[in-house]
């Protein structure tokens, strides 16, 4: 059994705003093993990206981690100083942001921008060494060496995204967070990038946290997954087990609202209502108001939010397990 590389324990994070505290991440607990691919799925505003930015401590200025711990390879990240964090970022953990391909500096060549990241972390490397390193990375993600001397506007969306992945790998991180890396891309390009990420992960033995709103992508990309709703994890476990036996009412709805090109054409279920406001937090189960067929406990809000283990390694929030 490989060891845990990232352990997130009871993480709470909120944003201080004029209207009050927006509880974006509530009691989030999960761990990622070496070489494992872990998926985070949920609708917009459920806190997926907040978790990602908190893991790297890149959250915006008004974000406060009120409690919890993030252990990366047994190092505690919460409470680290900025200079300590700079050593961890990219060396140990790196991220591919949503729409990162549009974040290239338009007036600097792609190769130079990647070299800059490597230089920051390995100042003693010679320029030649760095170029060799980039050429190696480009081979992995399927780009030609000549791309190094190109400017971002000369590349297509798919190529830019490949280069971003090369950038994320440039300092040999142990774990890479991919935050919706394919949302802005075409279906065919998305397919190519997904294959590339999978190949890279297997080749380098990386751990991967894959964040997406598309449950179909999560099904293909991950070994274990967590479903988030309103800042909390409502169900987590092995991907295969969640898909074959979804226990939380929200997970079931997510699965039944995704169209597919294979199998029988099914009537899909719609999810009515809006996600709750997270200002000043929620007391009871966040999903109850939208629950299509709530159990008595769910309706009355008897149960507090708590994950219970249903079968080996498969956890779900106790409130909506018995709802329809």
């Amino acid at each position, binding site marked *: 059994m490989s060891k845990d590389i990232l352990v997130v324990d009871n993480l709470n994070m909120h944003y201080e705003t004029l209207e009050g505290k927006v509880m974006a991440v509530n009691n989030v607990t999960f761990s990622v093993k070496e070489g494992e691919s872990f998926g985070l799925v949920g*609708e917009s505003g459920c806190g997926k990206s907040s978790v990602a930015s908190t893991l790297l401590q890149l959250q915006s200025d008004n974000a406060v981690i009120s409690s919890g711990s993030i252990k990366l390879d047994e190092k505690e990240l919460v409470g680290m100083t900025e200079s300590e964090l700079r050593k961890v970022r990219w060396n140990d953990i790196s991220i591919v942001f949503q729409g990162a391909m549009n974040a290239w500096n338009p007036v600097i060549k792609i190769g130079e921008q990647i070299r800059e990241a490597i230089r920051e972390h390995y100042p003693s490397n010679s320029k030649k060494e760095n170029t060799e390193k980039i050429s190696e990375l480009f081979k992995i993600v399927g780009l030609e060496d000549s791309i190094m001397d190109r400017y971002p506007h000369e590349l297509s969306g798919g190529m830019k995204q490949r280069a971003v992945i090369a950038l994320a790998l440039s300092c040999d991180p142990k774990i890479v967070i991919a935050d919706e890396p394919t949302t802005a891309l075409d*279906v065919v*390009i998305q397919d190519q990038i997904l294959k590339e990420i999978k190949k890279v992960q297997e080749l380098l033995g990386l751990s991967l946290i894959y964040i997406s709103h598309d449950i179909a992508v999560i099904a293909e990309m991950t070994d274990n997954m967590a479903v988030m709703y309103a800042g909390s994890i409502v169900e987590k476990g092995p*991907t*295969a087990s969640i898909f074959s036996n979804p226990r939380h009412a929200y997970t079931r709805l997510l699965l039944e*609202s995704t169209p597919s*090109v294979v199998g029988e054409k099914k009537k*899909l279920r719609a*999810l009515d209502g809006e996600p709750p406001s997270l200002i000043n937090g929620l007391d009871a189960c966040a999903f109850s108001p939208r629950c299509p067929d709530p159990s008595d406990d769910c309706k009355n809000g008897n149960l507090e939010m708590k994950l219970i283990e249903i079968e080996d390694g498969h956890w779900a929030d106790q409130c909506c397990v018995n709802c329809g």
Partner: protein
Amino acid sequence: MDNVIEVNNLVKNFDVSKGFFSRNKTIVKAVDGISFSIPKGESLGLVGQSGCGKTTTARALCLLDPKTSGDVKFYNPEADEMQNLDNLNDDQVKQFRRNTQMIFQDPYESLNPRWTIKDIILEPLNIHNIGSLENRTEAVVEILKTVGLTPPENYLPRYPHELSGGQRQRVSIARSLIMNPKFVICDEPTSMLDVSIRISIMDLMLDLAKDLQVSYLYITHDLAVARYMCNRIAVMFNGKIVEIAKTEDLLSNPIHPYTKRLISSIPVPDPKYTREKYEINFDELDEIISNNTENLPMVDVGNEHFVATHDVKDLLI
């Protein structure tokens, strides 16, 4: 069967020559001779990658951009006959515009931020001068109920920024349906919406199609969405339709290599399912399709399933 629209050899070129004095004209053939028709009450999905000419087709069809050549005939319920778009008089153009509406991709940009919901939905009625002022307001209230924005009084005085993405898209749908159109062009109406809201908008559009006898030209890059929404699907590549068939037939029995590639690139929400890997050489495909000066004929392979090729055997790469 009666059609709401018949498109024959539609071409839309863009002149991208550089410089004012340049002698050589550079032309991009965005839509290169496509033909299709949509029977009354049916929906056609137009599927393809970004830049294949889906949106250009839509804009040319509803007269937003002038087409370069080709014939477009539409059914005019007011005259109860098929009319050619090229020889319409002013009145008929108005009738065409009444009966052909569009729903756009981005509900954040397609609604005027300074207008209330009432103004937005009222505008088409004002332009076409339909009914008295009172009747118009009644019609707006009625259509808001139809698209599920209830109670309507709560929505009438609001501005777009006060609504969520799903609600805005319902307003867009209300605006297009208030004219009682028979044909609505939808340009990726759900791609900006969240997964959970997407289905309710798609279901709403399906219900309205049934109740109001509307036909859709549904543009999307997601075959899974097209499958849910459409009776037939046309696959577009580089400005040309390469395959057109009934939805289930196209998905279970794709013939063109590009269709196969497109289907194989859609992730399946089932971890146990392994997608068939299907790789094609896009340059080669480009050559087969684009470098043909004459349009490839559409070959019928049975069951109203058409493929663009000289001989189906050529496609067995």
